[in-house]
């Protein structure tokens, strides 16, 4: 009898524990910026959106587009109209119906709000119309191959139109599996399960707590102490100890972005130096750098060497451009051909431990081939400004990456590109990349990028060094987590074991 009673009591206790609110605590590297998908800028903010705001479509691990709010989409014959079919079983967190009109209102807001950062992403769209409750038609000025990728990210995220007039950035009302509860800047963002989401049964946590903890060591210590359930962006130097720890799971994936060396090729001002003006010197620099060595020494095997701007998972990452291996003699020969015995230049980088280690290694390797690099660790904001002003010779900087190849290349190397800090300009590259932009068919698009890359690999305004990884660490009782190349936290099906 006593046994029966105690086991009954134990079961009740366990059951209560199981039924009580279950939090999932995630350690972020930074504090997100404003939580309005049409105005926000940071990568880290997108980590929160994945649970908070649904979007029209999503990408899978192979970077293919998959349905989300839109169940289906199709192009017209000349690729100037894109039609979406919207699911009819969804509501926003405020109870408003999510229908085609709401989708159209969001797209309209994203492309017309004065400080919308999605405006340039949706520049090709000239009109949005909800033709019935479940159909939205986008009219384009010209074919735009990048549009689906944009709509699979923040440009395709949906807010409740009823909330447009409120302060969206501090109280976002979306339709995702979790709804916004509260935020204390620099401390935490709390989301709560949204029971009316059509996939609510696949989301197993009652609350999500996002905690920005910038110091990687402290973030890991919090996970080890049981104060977090998972963290993103582990410092590569901690990878070995995490792999050996049975209480932790280590999940990593090569991201969509890259780290590389951007070179000022303007030929004017600070760009007027052998590295900036002579492609042979840049080719020699590439030959002097061992990308595999950087991966081994600093990356602990996480820094997958990069030759191209496109992620390894992308169909546009071409076999035609294999990794250039380190060859000191060939580098010396190229420098001699260009008429130099030694070339010196300044290399700026955003000052942090990993970047310092990488750039010191680059300095040492390049020195053997005849480069005298003076390293300039710079505070990131200051470096950004110097680069945009063309007041630098070379800079080691990265790009977080986009799903569509256009996002990783066009803005950086086209003559008028907004991110073209190299001041690189080649009409043929412009022509190829602009054409690729308007070619939705992947097979027709691949050769365009290959041709552009052939020129860029020769002229090297940017030397790609490695693909940024997304290393996640989870407590061993987390089940079902999978990492995606876009680095997002998709929590569908993820649960905590008892």
């Amino acid at each position, binding site marked *: 009898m006593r046994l029966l009673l105690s086991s009954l009591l134990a079961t009740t206790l366990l059951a209560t524990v199981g039924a009580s609110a279950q939090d999932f605590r995630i350690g972020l590297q930074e*504090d997100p*910026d*404003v*939580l*309005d998908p049409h*105005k926000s*800028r*940071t990568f880290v903010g997108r980590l929160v959106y994945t649970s908070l705001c649904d979007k029209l479509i999503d990408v899978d691990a192979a970077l293919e587009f998959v349905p989300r709010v839109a169940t289906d989409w199709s192009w017209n014959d000349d690729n100037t109209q894109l039609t979406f079919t919207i699911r009819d079983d969804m509501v926003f967190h405020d109870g408003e119906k999510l229908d085609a009109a709401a989708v159209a209102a969001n797209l309209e807001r994203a492309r017309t709000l*004065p*400080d*919308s*950062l999605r*405006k*340039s992403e949706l520049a090709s769209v000239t009109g949005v119309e909800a033709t019935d409750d479940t159909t939205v038609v986008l009219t384009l000025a010209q074919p735009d191959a990048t549009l689906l990728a944009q709509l699979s990210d923040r440009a395709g995220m949906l807010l409740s139109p009823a909330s447009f007039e409120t*302060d969206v*950035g*501090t109280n976002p009302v979306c339709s995702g599996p979790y709804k916004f509860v509260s935020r*204390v*800047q*620099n*401390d*935490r963002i709390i989301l709560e399960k949204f029971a009316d989401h059509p996939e609510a049964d696949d989301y197993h946590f009652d609350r999500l707590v996002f*905690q*920005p*903890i*910038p*110091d990687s*060591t*402290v973030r890991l*210590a*919090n996970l*080890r*102490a*049981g*104060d977090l359930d998972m963290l993103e962006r582990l410092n590569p130097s901690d990878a070995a100890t995490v792999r050996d720890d049975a209480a932790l799971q280590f999940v990593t994936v090569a991201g969509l972005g890259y780290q590389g060396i951007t070179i000022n090729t303007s030929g004017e001002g600070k760009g007027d130096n052998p590295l900036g003006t002579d492609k042979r010197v840049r080719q020699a620099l590439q030959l002097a750098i061992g990308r595999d060595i950087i991966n081994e020494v600093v990356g602990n095997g996480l820094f997958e060497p990069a030759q191209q701007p496109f992620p390894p998972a992308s169909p546009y990452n071409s076999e035609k451009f294999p990794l250039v291996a380190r060859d000191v003699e060939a580098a010396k020969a190229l420098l001699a051909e260009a008429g130099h015995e030694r070339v010196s230049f300044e290399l700026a980088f955003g000052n942090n431990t990993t970047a310092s280690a990488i750039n010191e290694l680059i300095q040492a390797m390049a020195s053997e081939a005849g480069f005298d690099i003076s390293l300039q660790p710079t*505070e*990131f*904001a*200051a470096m*950004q*400004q*110097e680069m*945009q002003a063309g007041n630098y010779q070379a800079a080691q900087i990265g*790009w*977080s990456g986009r799903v569509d190849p256009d996002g990783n290349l066009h803005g950086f190397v086209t003559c008028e590109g*907004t*991110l073209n800090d190299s001041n690189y300009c080649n009409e043929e590259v412009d022509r190829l990349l602009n054409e690729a932009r308007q070619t939705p068919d992947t097979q027709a698009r691949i050769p365009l990028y290959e041709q552009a890359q052939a020129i860029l690999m020769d002229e090297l305004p940017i030397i790609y060094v490695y693909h940024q990884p997304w290393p996640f660490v989870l407590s061993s009782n987390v089940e079902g987590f999978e990492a995606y190349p876009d680095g997002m936290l998709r929590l569908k099906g993820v649960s905590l074991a008892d």
Partner: protein
Amino acid sequence: MLKIIARRVLVAIPTLVLVTLIVFGLQKILPGDPLLTLAGEERDPQVLAYLREKYRLDDPFHMQYLAWLGNVLTGDFGNSLRTGVPVSTLIAQKLPVTLQLAVMAIIMAMLIGIPAGIISAVRKGTTTDYAANAVALSGMSIPNFWLGIILIMVVSVQWRLLPASGYVPLTENPIQSLRTMLMPSFVLATALAAYLMRHTRSAMLGVLTSDYIRTARAKGLLPKTVILKHALRNALMPIVTLSTLLFGELLAGAVLTEQVFTIPGFGKLIVDAVFTRDYAVVQGVVLCTAVGFIFMNLVADVLYILINPRLRHPQ
């Protein structure tokens, strides 16, 4: 007394204006464009131009400053460039955190530092004195961030006694709140306790050799009474001033400690704001801490007068 306070408050106003002017100027000198930083990877020239105008970033320096000052006088500290949250809200969110940390740290520092200073003065030249001095020296020399990380590793990760970092408001869960703040305030207290110990010791040493103490001892008073009632009261004056000033400094936020323990206080707020060139936040927080610091100075003066009756009626 009231007159003294009133005069001090008046003198504080130009100081505050000067502080905000200097901070405003320094931010403008800092390399880095707030909008480029804000835009990050999303550099849409149209949007940048719109925001530049909205936040008046192209106005001449004095216009920007006067506009800011005018808004502050009407109670509007502006909004954070990065998150859109009003600066006054941010200050209201962070002030209790920083206050709690500062109060806990200063109490701990006084509880450790003052008794240690008294004991080491009374037992001058003994092993106890040397040991206390050695501990104080290490308290001053050990960097806060190092001690913080070691404490997290040992107390939270190894022993699992206290939460590794973060912050729980006192109103939400007082016990958990004190537990999370225990390590960070201890880390802050170590250095402060060392200062307090050194100052208490030297003040006590000075007092203990004075004539009236000898007289008190000659009267046959208990050593405890002599030390605590006669000597300490006089020695306490510089200590009170020092503690108040140290507390004023703590209000500015403990940058490294807050960073290590991820405490969302002033220190972390201001560092993040500087890195993202969030001008309005930097200005607002600096103004707030300057007011706090000046206020603590005033408190120090008043306390000084209260403890020392000789100052009550200045000639």
